[in-house]
């Protein structure tokens, strides 16, 4: 009798799960988490006319859903020193994060190949601090942008091992950005507001691009991801120019799973 009740319970559970998968629709999801280290080349004419070079640490998280919804968060921290200086080595510390979300459309022109085109909306906020400066010790970076995203994913085998090659590029196309005016202090901004500091963002104010080439190696419950990331963040506005050109090697994992949700 007890065995019978257990069987009924198990059957009901399977049925419920089955019905949920039909009515709610099983939603495939892919989550990626990466962290990495690399080099960065910086210049910020609000702080210094010199080029700085050093290392950066970065983390990246992304979720992609079968519906095409995609959301990604990236954070980074850098420590750089002037390239040319021989006598003194002041240090600049930088950091920032970006958040983007949007939709992607997928095509599968041939077996094993997936091409992606999409649009993201998001923001980037960061700061670069130069330890040596007086009343202009730091410069903030901030923009709200809409980006175009393209991707190519190719599944192939080496021997019996299935591998995945994944390329993805995000390029902000239009938005608004923040920049202090040429000789304006942040003290002045704090007293008088950001008038004149919020400007339209487009290719003319700086070409920005984040591109990543990754290879996924399947392990037990997830895939190991090894990636190269090239991150170009730059801006030219109010006669102030800055750039962060980063190259990073990243490692992380990709998990693919199916969610069954009630509608």
């Amino acid at each position, binding site marked *: 009798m007890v065995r019978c009740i257990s069987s009924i319970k198990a059957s009901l559970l399977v049925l419920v799960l089955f019905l949920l998968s039909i009515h709610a629709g099983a939603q495939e999801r892919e989550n990626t988490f990466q962290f990495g280290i690399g080099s960065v080349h910086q*210049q910020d*004419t609000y*702080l*210094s*006319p*010199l*080029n700085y070079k050093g290392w950066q640490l970065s983390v990246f998280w992304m979720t992609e859903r079968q519906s095409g919804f995609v959301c990604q968060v990236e954070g980074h921290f850098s420590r750089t020193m*002037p390239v*040319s*200086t*021989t*006598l*003194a*080595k*002041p240090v600049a510390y930088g950091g920032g994060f970006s958040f983007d979300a949007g939709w992607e459309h997928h095509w599968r022109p041939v077996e094993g190949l997936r091409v992606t085109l999409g649009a993201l909306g998001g923001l980037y906020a960061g700061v670069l601090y*130069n330890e*040596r*400066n*007086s*009343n*202009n010790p730091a410069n903030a970076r901030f923009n709200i942008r809409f980006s175009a995203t393209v991707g190519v994913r190719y599944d192939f085998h080496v021997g019996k091992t299935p591998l995945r090659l994944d390329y993805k590029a995000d390029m902000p196309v239009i938005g608004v950005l923040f920049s202090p*005016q*040429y*000789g*304006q*202090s942040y*003290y*002045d901004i704090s*007293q*008088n507001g950001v008038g*004149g500091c919020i400007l339209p963002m487009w*290719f003319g104010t*700086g*070409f920005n*691009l984040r591109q990543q080439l990754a290879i996924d190696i399947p392990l037990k419950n997830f895939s190991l991801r090894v990636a190269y990331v090239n991150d*170009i963040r*730059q*801006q*030219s506005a*109010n*006669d102030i*120019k*800055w*750039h962060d050109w980063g190259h990073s090697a990243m490692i992380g994992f990709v998990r693919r799973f199916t969610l069954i949700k009630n509608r």
Partner: protein
Amino acid sequence: MKKVLTILLCGMLLVLTSCVSEEVFENTRTGNVEALWKIIDEHYCFLPYKKQTLGVDWNEVRGRYVNYEVERMDRYELFDHCAAMLAELKDGHVNLYSAADIGRNWSWRDDYPKNLDVEVREKYLGTDYKIAGSLKYRILERERPDDNGDVVKDSVGYVVCESFSSGIGDASINEIFYHFIDCKGVILDIRGNGGGDLDNCECLTSHFLAQRTLVGYSSFKTGKGWNDFSPKREEWITPPDYVCWLRPVVVLTNRGCYSAANSFVRNMKALPHVITLGDKTGGGGGMPFSSELPCGWSVRFSACPEYDIFGRVTEHGIEPDIYCSLDEEKAKEGEDSMIETAKMLIK
């Protein structure tokens, strides 16, 4: 295939031509002098004013300092050469910093009488003075004739503010004025105050306000041209919630009052119950920014000019309401003639 290559080439061209970068001078002797000249040329805010008042033409300065002779200099000579170029501007906020030295022009202070004897001032403070934040204070007794000619005894508060670099704080100022509650007025001695943090300057000013008050204007450069300036922006200061001193105030000044102390005098001159007494201030009416040279030396320069309530540049100092010098003979006897004059000015 041709189409793909064309797209790729166009893409690469877009990336290459879109690099946002500024030219950096080479780390050579000439490169460093060129870089220094350019930093001042594009960022220094008083080039038109210095040309008008001192006759300093920055383009003419380039001809004298950016030349082939610098290639023969060792790094110490090069530093002195660069410092001399900056000294042409006669601006205390313009400095060149290396590990070995600070290039400067302190003629705004050194070429004039000090009008301050620190030992005599210490005698006025005594040994039992109080310290609130970075302010030293005590009550000074005085005897003065009243309107009927009778001698009356009363007191005035005496506050010494040697710098605005350290924090002051509303609570400290409140305590000082509570301590002076029976005093007829306050003498604020900022002689020798070389400046510091503008927030401290504003904090102290705010305790002398009855209402939100316009104390001056400021602007900043909007481009690389010598005359590229923003419109003048009003600078208002709001009184704090607690203690505000509205009895007579005398501010003692000398040539050593510079930068934030210069701003403080500018602010106080906008108030009806305040008299400034002493010598003209040293100036420094431009908030400094920093930059650096390819060799690693740091350079500081005035970037954001400030103006008084009449729209006048305060870079070369602010005239007192009443000129008064320190009497050296009386100072030898332990009397500060400027403090004594201030005591008698308070009615």
